[in-house]
């Protein structure tokens, strides 16, 4: 399994953290990433309305031919988005761990303002330790 990248999207659809780990997806500019994160936020809202049997969650996994996008939507509407290879079975547990790191190194940091971009070295290193070592 390969982890290509990670996004954290706040509840307003803004990209507050973006990081890529492996080549495989195209390298986008910061601006393109922001636009795509906003699009994903909108798509996520629409997909929850299209349920054929009543209410549904938003999209959880989006699949392309060689990669997939796994989305963890937390109770506070923060979205953790992980880009992995298509047949990766570990994406969901990994996202839970990312959420844990976010709580520990992001939210518990007294200098971090909620909903604002995450700029913390500790968060960076812990994410790197978690996701940077999963290349196989």
């Amino acid at each position, binding site marked *: 399994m390969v982890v290509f990248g990670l996004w954290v999207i706040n509840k307003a659809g803004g990209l507050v953290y973006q990081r890529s780990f492996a080549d495989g997806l195209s390298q986008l500019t910061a601006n393109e990433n922001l636009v795509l994160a906003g699009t994903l936020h909108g798509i996520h809202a629409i997909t929850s309305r299209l349920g054929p049997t*009543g209410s549904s969650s938003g999209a959880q996994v989006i699949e392309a031919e060689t990669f997939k996008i796994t989305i963890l939507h937390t109770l506070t509407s923060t979205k953790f988005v992980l880009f992995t290879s298509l047949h990766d079975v570990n994406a969901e547990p990994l996202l839970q761990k990312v959420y844990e790191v976010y709580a520990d190194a992001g939210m518990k940091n007294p200098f971090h303002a909620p909903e604002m971009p995450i700029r913390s070295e500790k968060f960076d290193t812990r994410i790197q330790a978690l996701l940077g070592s999963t290349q196989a």
Partner: protein
Amino acid sequence: MTIYSLYIFDRHCACVYYHDWHRTKRPRPAGKDALLPGVSRVMSYQAPVTDGVPQSTFTSPRNTLVSSSGIVVAVNADEEVVKPPSSNLSISQAQGTALPFDEEAKLVYGVIFSLRNMIKKLSKRDEQFTAYRTSNYKLHLYETPSLYKFVLLTDVRADMTASLPSPVRFALRQIYAGPFLEFVVRNPLIPMDSRTQGIDNEYFRASVDRLIRGLSFFQ
């Protein structure tokens, strides 16, 4: 495993065909002039019934076509003879928070359009968006070279085997290669790419229905 609904869109973003199977929450019929004629009899605009006599309720999707006199091979643009299939059914559908069908079709198209562009931008090679899933349904897309888009909604258990190629996508390709080619492309009464009319006709609907019901994952 369950199959919920099939949408076909043409390259002009218009929904040209709709068929559903096990939907419990069905959309309301489309508003007047909001949907092309010949997409789906059940979802087309239904004039308010004045006589109040409930007509026969339909039980199978095949009965959504009015076939009392011969077989419908194409739908005429002016549908003055079409009667609403069932007045009491459409009223019960209209309650609740169901979207009108035309708006639902636009949302479906919007989602696949945006996701397709997003995937293309993210991937280095020109990759196709194939599917997404939520907690209680999964949407599959198959796009033909002529930009017809076949969209199938199933439950999440269909296609969990992670085998390549996905059986649902293969089924969509079969619809394209079989019924679509035979009863739409080769049907002189169906104007392709017309922007004014859908592709619904009785042979196509019956043959899609047979194909879907024959699938190993159809419940």
